[in-house]
């Protein structure tokens, strides 16, 4: 792909073409912007398809159980109550399951950034060596490997290795993120000029010092993208913990939501409060980091 997607997708695109003049603020005086109102209104209406399910989740969570079962999903909570959250907190043993989810995600994020930055640095600086080049393609092969193909064997192997627990889940997440992350880092490292490293080496810096003091700080923006994707993948994942973790008490938040389908299926306010608590961290992270999320998708797809 010849077009490099700039990291700040939405601001720089304005220079690319007039049609994409980003204007969030009111038009400047003296130069009235002409907006395409019909399209704006059509998009706003379409966005309801995204917002309505989230709105229902939010309102249901604050209702009483008796109001939640009346079938009217779109009414506002009356009276407004936190009972659902209190019960969901207890039913899902929220502090523990939240801690497990955070632990798995934190391990995945740190592990993915470090392992893939190491590997990408070694690969990009030794591209002329067959071993490193082939290692790159070998790691990328994971991008094409569907999880169901290896799932049952991984369940067996993690059981044998006593990793049928959140730690095993986190290690597997790192491995599944590795191909995509090495790809992003390698592409980024190719754009860093050699001269910087050469001068550091002339002053006697070792490869390890060059990496930690020069390369790794330069990788920061890409580390952010890699880290966010590792976080979202591990935080929202359902299938891997549900298959790998053998102890039900050690399950992550998404897996625990199953109890509301079986045991507490009529306490809609409780189940929705629980869904909300499971969703909210990822949505908050996204709202603060949407630039990198958007850039990561486009870079990953067209590299």
């Amino acid at each position, binding site marked *: 792909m010849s077009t490099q997607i700039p990291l700040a997708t939405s601001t720089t695109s304005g220079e690319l073409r007039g049609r994409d003049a980003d204007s969030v603020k009111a038009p400047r005086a003296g130069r009235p912007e002409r907006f395409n109102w019909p399209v704006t209104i059509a998009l706003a209406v379409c*966005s309801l398809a995204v917002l309505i399910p989230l709105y229902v989740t939010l309102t*249901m969570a604050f209702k009483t159980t008796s109001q939640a079962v009346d079938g009217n*999903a779109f009414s506002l909570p009356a009276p407004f109550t936190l009972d659902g959250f209190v019960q969901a907190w207890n039913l899902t043993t929220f502090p523990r399951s939240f801690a497990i989810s955070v632990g798995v995600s934190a391990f995945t994020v740190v592990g993915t950034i470090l392992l893939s930055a190491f590997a990408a640095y070694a*690969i990009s600086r030794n591209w002329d060596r067959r071993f490193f080049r082939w290692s790159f393609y070998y790691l990328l092969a994971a991008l094409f*490997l569907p999880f169901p193909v290896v799932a049952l064997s*991984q369940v067996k192997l993690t059981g044998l290795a006593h990793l049928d627990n959140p730690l095993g889940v986190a290690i597997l997440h790192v491995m599944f993120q590795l191909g995509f992350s090495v790809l992003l880092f*390698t592409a980024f490292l190719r754009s860093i000029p050699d001269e910087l490293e050469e001068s550091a080496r002339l002053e006697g810096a070792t490869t390890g010092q060059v990496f930690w003091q020069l390369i790794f700080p330069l990788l920061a923006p890409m580390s952010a993208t890699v880290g966010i994707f590792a976080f979202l993948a591990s935080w929202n994942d359902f299938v891997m913990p549900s298959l790998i973790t053998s102890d039900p008490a050690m399950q992550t938040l998404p*897996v625990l939501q199953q109890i509301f389908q079986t045991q507490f299926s009529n306490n809609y306010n409780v189940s929705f409060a629980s869904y909300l608590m499971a969703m909210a961290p990822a949505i908050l992270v996204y709202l603060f980091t949407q630039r990198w999320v958007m850039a990561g998708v486009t870079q990953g797809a*067209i590299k």
Partner: protein
Amino acid sequence: MAVVPQASPRPKTRADTPASGRRGRRRIDKTFYAFLLPGLVLFTLAIALPAVTGIFYSFTDSVGFGQFGFTGFINYIALFSDPSIRSAYGFTIGFALVTVAVVNAIAFLLAIGLTARIRAKVALRAVFVLPMVVSGIVIAYVFNFLFSNSIPAAATALGFGPLESSLLANPDWAWLAIVVVTAWQAIPSTILIYIAGILAIPADVYEAAALDGASAARQLRSITIPLTAGYILINVIIGFKNFLNSYDIIVGLTNGGPGTSTTSIAMSIFNGFTNGDYAYQMANATIFFLIAIVIALLQLRATRGRSGL
């Protein structure tokens, strides 16, 4: 995610640069091996080894533990005449095709809208990308409630017959609910790729077309669609590949039912342990793997053709 392995990342190898001061192959710093090996070794243990052992067990009669014997291709022969496997493949492939069409049509239109001169562009883009970060299983449970309770209640109030009973309980139409929720989650990343594609079109092409009096519809047909063809291809391939793996959302909506009408390939494989047909499902996974490899090759060809490398 599509990948284009870049043939030569650097104009010349570092060995050629005068700065390295040596001729020919420079001696490698051992530290580079220390950097590469942790990832490589772990990856081999966690991903490559399970893939190989899985293929190995597909030629046995293992139940997942204990003793086993070799059975050759018996599992594979049995697969092809198994109605439940056929229905899983039929459902999954049909579902993936429908969902790819729905997702790409909607995402393309939204991307055109989101690159036009609109108010609140940043906010609108943020909203349309939001579903990407919501857990599949959780949003499926939310939609499960809407399909089972809210929509029937609303349909009854409006006197609209077909939707008065839950879509999820209807063996003929439950798949439609899965398409809706899968699309809800998959459209964001598809939109982002289309936005990148549309922004890559030079503005003067449109200006020239406008000077020649081309209408908006004509510009869409003669400029936007042809010039984003490569992005359409990537989105179709990536989407199809992802939808073949569908699992979470199906669990949250129908759990493969009613009956087995919405049981996907992934679901049939994951049930291999509980049903005690481990080796049999490994054969299923191996076939699935072969399909994935074919799609991967298509993807590489599609991206390489237009990456300018």
